């Protein structure tokens, strides 16, 4: 599937009529100089609320009749600057920034679902998402059907009249599966439903899912976008390309809203509908607002995304190659290696490399895995990815421990699996630390 078929789906940003490059967007999108002071770095508007010009102005804002700020649970100028930047990076129409990646998933599903509805999700997701979708969403009466998304027939067959979306990760965490986005988008659109893609691990530096047909993109911005392990956050980006009216399946966006006296978001806001809904309903009622400080830290992080990703990927490629010949390692799953089953999909969808998060199998299983992560001196043992520092984790004993053994294996988080998020340290130091830890673990095992 050529991306040309979809490339007109992107909303581009221009400098004096000419499309701006990705690195330029990282620095400038959403952050034109402050009109009052001329401040070049975007100000932190650390405020909860905003003075109305008059009672009439207040009424206009509460009726959603004009853009403006009421209360920082809904909108905030610093958060808005970040939202415009993230929307622009993904080529979307608009975005809603919120407290975490999990909150972004809530914001995306809230307008689509009602009790009794279901959606289809890849069974290879971040473990926290599997729990959110499979356990907590059930409390709202939302069912999730987990499928192998590389089996397109299985995806099509899982769709029922109550199915409201298909969800996948562009590059999955931790198993490194690359989603074939274009045919999945076709399946979704044929059924009159949107394709939602979690683009956290790939980032828009490697892949912009909207250009291949995705309708909504979500992120945990906590990872590479903020990039320094400094701020938890999430975002829902709307492509503005999905017609919420056609199928009649989405009264939340294309029907009267009781809390706004029958206002119809699609009719009133056109292709801004989902973004307005994300703030005026999602953040208003779910309350998952991000702090202006976290938004600002994330803005600062995005400035260097391209240069960081370049080094993250270069280091990861070398570490994956090193591990693939290491005697204590049974396998390496990194789409940047030619023997990976996802190597070709990675070439198609991930323009500049296969990212810097991948898994490998340590010989000896669960307990050796636990010992290995405890033995690293430089690489940090913690439950995050996309930090500037290199990170290591044994998913079976941490992020995926709430799952059953079967679910863990299906999600690519079996007993012998070790997840790495390769950082920006000197490559030699990363390799030495891993080699030392692997050898120490093996020696210890032999001594037992």
């Amino acid at each position, binding site marked *: 599937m050529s991306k040309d078929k979809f490339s007109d789906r992107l*909303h*581009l*940003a*221009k*400098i004096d*009529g000419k499309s*701006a490059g990705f690195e*330029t*967007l990282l620095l*400038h*999108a*959403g952050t*034109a*100089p*402050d*009109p009052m002071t*001329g401040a070049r770095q975007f100000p932190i508007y650390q405020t909860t609320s905003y003075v109305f010009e008059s009672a009439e102005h207040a009424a*206009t804002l509460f*009726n*959603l*009749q*004009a*853009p*403006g*700020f009421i209360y920082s649970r809904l*909108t905030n*100028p610093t*958060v*808005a*600057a970040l*939202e*415009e930047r993230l*929307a*622009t990076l993904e080529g*979307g*129409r*608009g*975005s*809603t*920034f919120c407290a975490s990646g999990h909150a972004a998933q809530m914001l995306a599903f809230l307008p689509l679902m009602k009790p009794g509805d279901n959606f289809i999700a890849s069974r290879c997701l971040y473990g926290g998402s599997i729990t959110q979708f499979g356990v907590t969403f059930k409390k709202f009466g939302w069912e999730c059907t987990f499928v192998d998304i590389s089996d397109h027939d299985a995806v099509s067959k899982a769709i029922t009249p109550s199915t409201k979306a298909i969800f996948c990760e562009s590059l999955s965490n931790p198993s490194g599966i690359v989603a074939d986005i274009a045919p999945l988008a076709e399946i979704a659109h044929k059924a009159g439903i949107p394709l939602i893609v979690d683009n956290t691990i790939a980032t828009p530096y490697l892949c912009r899912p909207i250009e291949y047909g995705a309708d909504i993109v979500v992120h945990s911005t906590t990872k590479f976008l903020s990039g320094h392990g400094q701020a938890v956050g999430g975002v829902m980006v709307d492509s503005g390309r999905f017609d919420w009216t056609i199928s009649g399946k989405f009264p939340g966006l294309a029907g009267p809203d009781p809390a*706004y*006296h*029958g*206002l119809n978001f699609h*009719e*009133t806001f*056109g*292709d*801004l509908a989902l*973004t*307005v809904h*994300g*703030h005026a309903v999602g953040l208003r009622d779910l309350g998952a607002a991000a702090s202006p400080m976290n938004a600002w830290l994330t803005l600062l992080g995005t400035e260097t995304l391209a240069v960081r990703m370049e080094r993250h990927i270069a280091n990861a490629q070398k570490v994956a190659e090193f591990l693939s010949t290491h005697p204590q390692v049974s396998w390496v799953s990194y789409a940047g290696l030619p023997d990976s089953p996802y190597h070709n999909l990675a070439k198609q969808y991930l323009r500049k490399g296969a990212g810097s998060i991948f898994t490998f199998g340590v010989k000896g299983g669960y307990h050796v895995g636990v010992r290995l992560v405890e033995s690293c001196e430089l690489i940090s043992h913690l439950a995050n990815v996309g930090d500037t520092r290199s990170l290591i984790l044994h998913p079976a004993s941490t992020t995926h421990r709430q799952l059953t053994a079967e679910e863990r294996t299906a999600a690519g988080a079996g007993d012998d699996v070790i997840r790495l998020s390769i950082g920006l340290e000197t490559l030699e130091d990363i390799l030495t630390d891993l080699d030392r830890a692997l050898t120490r673990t093996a020696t210890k095992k032999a001594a037992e």
Partner: protein
Amino acid sequence: MANHDSYTNDELRDILSMVKTIAMVGASANWNRPSYFVMKYLQAKGYRVIPVNPSAAGQDILGETCYANLADIPGQFDMVDIFRNSEAAAGIVDEAIQLKSQKEIKVIWMQLTVRNDAAARRAEAAGMRVVMDRCPKIEYSRLYGELSWGGINSGIITSQRRKRGS
């Protein structure tokens, strides 16, 4: 015919700064209709908006008398903003062409999802500028920074200190 798949920021800025008075066809007295939102917003930005709607003729909408058609409006107006479907837009455009000299109409603007290329060609042949499938409220707020307050991609990259809002 001019390109109607995309409009440059300069074209839209030029139109929105030249226009002072707008006849809004399909205006509504109901506060939660999109046309009401747009009328109220444009008024707040200093435009005079004259509502046109046969079913509300004679009524007051946001302080302005509503007229049954363009010809009934006393005085002149620069732009006709059409809140009707693409098919119905043709008749409005033809009426505007007839009234062009008398009312000094310079711009035909069709709202989001409204597009009629044949009518646009006739309006352009008569010397009027045409914008289709756009909303003046969205475009105004996009060009002057306010749309970004809602997390929307304005498509604008600049290091210039811009005026906000008005």
